[in-house]
């Protein structure tokens, strides 16, 4: 959907539908995803940026 619509910055995640930041009660994973999404703001343009969370070097 992000590829077709083209929002300025998107972090693609590997989780099931309904787990936008990771599984329920997995605070550490959710925090990691939020941090990774916000880090896209520090990248220079032009956009749109579509990043794969799994490709980032912060998955534990």
């Amino acid at each position, binding site marked *: *959907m992000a590829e*077709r*619509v*083209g*929002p*300025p910055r998107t972090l693609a995640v*590997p*989780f*099931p*539908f*309904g*787990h*936008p*930041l*990771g*599984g*329920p*009660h*997995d*605070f550490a994973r*959710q*925090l990691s995803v*939020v*941090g990774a*999404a*916000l*880090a896209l*703001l*520090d990248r*220079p*343009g*032009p*956009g*749109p940026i579509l990043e794969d969370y799994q490709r980032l070097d912060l998955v534990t």
Partner: protein
Amino acid sequence: MAAFTDLSLRDRLLMAAYPWRTIDPPAWAQPLRPVSAARVAIVTSAGFYRPGIDPPFRSIAGGDVSLRILPVDTRLDRLELGQVSHSFDREALATDPGSALPIPHLQALAAAGGIGSVAPRHLSFNGSILAPGRLTKETGPEAARILAEDQVDIALFVPV
């Protein structure tokens, strides 16, 4: 990983035929300050609302494009899920609303210096809006006005 094939046949047919809009030209705004100094707000499409305080989202043709404002001190465990779709794990969001409205996560980041501050208000839309005309013409600009009023630098959209 969520995949197109995880959806029901009905939803797959709907998505295949849906006239997706493309943001053209691409929207782009360079942040005025680094993330570590930015004020961050969450915009979710979980359709969260506060029972007894906010009106529930309605199940209407094309989708309910209205908006709920959730103060930063909202009790997450008291939120109701207004999303009408059954194409996602509803139980996950019902038991852990923070997984789609990560206010505690922003507070943790602010305490650690990862962001500047957490916005005083966060926004909840309903998902499954098939007719987004009023959303883009009315509710969207209203959301932008609220975020600008709160001097928000970054709006983190959490789609459901």
